[in-house]
């Protein structure tokens, strides 16, 4: 059974009367355990598609199904609930909560899930250790490097034990070594724990690691490939 599925999804943005077609009928299925990248040039609709899959936005037409549940049928509160329990997010700009330290950032999601303080602390500590940042638990985002912040973001994303992690250009702000380390970590989580990852990226490093690549162009799926990445 698919985790995420889109059926003839279209998305049109309207700014000052000018309409822009960001997605033009996308049919896509993501299965459990995938390590997939949405590839394509800027403006191809990668982020728009990721936002729709992440229940952060609604399509103009077509369907987005999470666990075969049509997101259009859900209320705002139900969408929040689905994001909290079924989806994890890693953003391009890390987007940690600046007033919370690394451990608290991870705990934040657990608290939203209603997990008790003691268990929260324990799990946050384990997750930071898992991403190799146990010693940074008390550091706030401004005191960490970009790579470290993105690792905390990964720990936060996996904290809620989601069915899929959506990562929007996760390596865009990182140098290649840090990006490689981050991707290794994600790959390890995918292989060892079966965590499903869906990236949007045009970074060759991400595309190299991805088991499946979906190429988007002008709001349409132009093609897809599996196996080793050929530049």
């Amino acid at each position, binding site marked *: 059974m698919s985790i995420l599925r889109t059926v003839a999804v279209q998305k049109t943005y309207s700014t000052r009367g000018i309409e822009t077609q960001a997605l033009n009928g996308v049919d896509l299925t993501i299965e459990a355990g995938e390590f997939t990248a949405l590839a394509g040039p800027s403006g191809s609709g990668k982020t728009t598609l990721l936002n729709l899959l992440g229940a952060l*936005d609604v399509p103009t037409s077509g369907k987005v199904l999470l666990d075969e549940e049509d997101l259009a049928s859900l209320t705002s*509160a139900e969408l929040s609930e689905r994001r909290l329990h079924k989806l994890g997010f890693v953003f391009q700009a890390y987007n940690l909560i600046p007033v*919370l330290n690394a451990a608290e950032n991870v705990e934040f999601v657990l608290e*939203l899930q209603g997990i008790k303080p003691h268990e929260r602390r324990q799990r946050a500590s384990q997750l930071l250790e898992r991403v190799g940042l146990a010693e940074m638990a008390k550091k706030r985002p401004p005191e960490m490097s970009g790579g470290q912040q993105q690792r905390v973001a990964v720990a936060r994303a996996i904290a809620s034990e989601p069915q899929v992690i959506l990562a929007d250009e996760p390596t865009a702000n990182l140098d290649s070594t840090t990006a490689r380390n981050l991707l290794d970590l994600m790959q390890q989580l995918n292989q060892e724990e079966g965590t499903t990852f869906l990236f949007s990226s045009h970074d060759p490093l991400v595309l190299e690691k991805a088991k499946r690549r979906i190429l988007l162009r002008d709001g349409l799926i132009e093609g897809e490939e599996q196996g080793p990445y050929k530049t």
Partner: protein
Amino acid sequence: MLTLFRIALRNIGRNRRRTSILVVTVAIGLLGTTLSMSLLWGIEQQMIETATATDLGHLQIHATGYNADPKISRLLSDGGKEIDGLLDGEPSVQAYSHRIRSEGLVTSPKASVGLRILGVDAEREPEVSSIKNWIVEGDYLSGKRRESIVGRRLANRLGVQIGDKVIISAQDTQGNMTAESIRITGIFRSVSSDIDSGYLFINLDQSAHIFGTHEAISEIVVVMNERQSALPLQAKLSMNRPHLEVLRWDQLRPFIAFMMDTTQSVAASFYLVIFVAMAFGIANVMMMSIFDRVREIGVMLALGMSRTRLLLLIITEGVLVTIIGTAIGLALSLGIVGALSEGVDFSFYSAGFNDFGVGSRIVPLLKPEDFILPIAISMLTAFMASLWPALRAVQLQPAEATRHE
């Protein structure tokens, strides 16, 4: 909830300059309100105390119709015996005394002045009024014949000193004009220009002699242990006694009751102005704070934070800042009122105050409601003022907000 509170607390510490401005605004608002109110309460309190301690007491008992037409012939013909018995057994009563009250003319070689003549029980009067304490020259009444005490202003108008004689001319209970020569034996100075210039106190027996009242009296003045207990006693004394007119101090002097109502209205106006200004301040600061954090709010929503929780977070921030400002404002207010426990000297303005029965030294007074009400209104204001920015925040779309620069 703990993280929510932690985030709120840390968020208000993020832009310290902005938070400080808001805290100072709230603190100054609260300080200004409570200090102004403490002075107003102080004035009101002094006005009531002066009035009740001079001639009003807390309750006065007369023959029915006396207050509408205070003729000397409207008397308690039994000399107050019916009521005295009841008052003696009433634990809420601190003291009571008998008086004969009339109006008349006092003539000295220099001037003639129309005034109120109060025949008082020299022994019991100090228990119901402060007249004895106000003597600045000569002596208080001793009960001897032909004694009288007058206010400093009246003495000056009449051009008399201690030992001088004056003539009292008045109408007796039969409607005949009567005159009596008396001696000025004491001069007092109160905080009320009205009392200082328009009252003459003589002994009760002397008064009975001048006005021909015999055993009868005009009034019984009662002082209660607690001002508030005048109301139930009034009801008790009035019951089944249509021949008596029992009135409270605020009914006898409606101007004071009006002043109390005015003080309440002034308080309400103060609160309204201060809290409207505070509301704008809070809303403005919270709005700026949200605008600075659009992306962060978007991330919280994306991570699954419910919009209700987000609403709560932003309102908590507004309320927390207000709590800090309120605490500082009220602490300063307590400190200043404590430091002014000896009173504030308004002698440069005292002539105006004396016309209202208020002295030149005002002791600021803070009532518990001066704290409870501002705290409650501050919190409500903070809640309402934060609600608007909070509602704007929860309307953010996570997809757009997470990309906000």
